[in-house]
């Protein structure tokens, strides 16, 4: 079995617990954030390279599809950041926290904290999309 196949089989087929899914989500949210950063660097570069192109890109960002993407991006940033802090704190300062009970609970708390931060942001961002793209709420 090739390494890639083994990895994908393990990622998708291994029935791990909270840590396994936190690891997968950390990877996915990390990739999501990196993808955004690449796009962001390119669009900012357009200010110098092609001002007209920059305006087109900004218009593209205001579409509903990109609005939804930005909401997903906020989730990626919050989860990746909070989970990263959890891992760094445990690994660097509190190795004893790597017990099954503490690890499972801390993973759940990480997800809850992410949702607490993300849901209000989602509310405002979704509201903006509905106001500006669909004329709802007096827009």
């Amino acid at each position: 079995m090739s390494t890639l196949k083994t990895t994908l089989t393990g990622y998708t087929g291994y029935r791990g617990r909270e840590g396994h899914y936190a690891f997968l989500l950390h990877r996915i949210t990390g990739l999501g954030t990196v993808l955004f950063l690449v796009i962001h660097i390119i669009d900012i570069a357009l200010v110098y390279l092609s001002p007209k192109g920059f305006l087109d890109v900004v218009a593209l960002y205001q579409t509903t599809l990109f609005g939804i993407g930005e909401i997903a991006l906020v989730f990626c940033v919050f989860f990746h950041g909070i989970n990263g802090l959890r891992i760094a704190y445990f690994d660097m300062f509190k190795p004893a926290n790597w017990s099954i009970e503490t690890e499972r609970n801390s993973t759940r708390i990480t997800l809850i904290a992410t949702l607490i931060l993300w849901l209000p942001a989602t509310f405002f961002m979704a509201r903006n999309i509905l106001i500006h793209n669909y004329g709802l709420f007096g827009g």
Partner: protein
Amino acid sequence: MEIRLRVFRFQPEKDQRPRYDVFTIETDPTERILDLLEYVRGDVDGSLAFRRSCAHGVCGSDAMRINGRNLLACKVLVKDLGTSEITVEPLLGLRVIKDLIVDMGPFLEHYKSVMPYFINDDIPADGKEFLQSPEQRARFDDTTKCIMCAACTTSCPSFWSNTEYVGPAAIVNAHRFIFDSRDTGAAKRLEVLNEQFGVWRCRTAFNCTEACPREIKITQAIAEVKQVLTSGKLE
């Protein structure tokens, strides 16, 4: 109760690709998965290959993926799985030799690389033995429990991605000697673990700790080795 046992089958000498054989078995909920495999091999299909030795969770021979999770077949009862559909597959990340038997060679090479033996060429102060307090002994007690079943290493996403990673089991066995107050080989082991495919490949997915049949706090042991490497202090 009646269960459906799906078993991964692969015989390199005649199979192009793996397949799953299904065996319907009437069994008791308190039977172990190993008992089911023994029944299949003894009464249904004698060509089924799997490892077993003590059958009591001590030797670590029968680690395998049971319903997608690394477990010892001799320690899991049918009722523990909470389902009548049971899938048994070989450990992931090691080459399948036949059916449920994997090539443990790479795993054992990593184990050897951390020098998992006592190193001290000094003469004891009393000329007889190296003394150790109960507290000093307790420091590495947890990591003495490893039975080398490979359930941890083959549940690790970093190992799936790159089998050059030394893996949790080797780090656990290094930890056992690094923190032994009588041992003098810590620097050599830490050098190995500080390399590219050493301890820093750990991504704290925690599958290893969850999979360990001896309940060793593996991720904690790995973090402690990381701390020694960053602080330079062996405490």
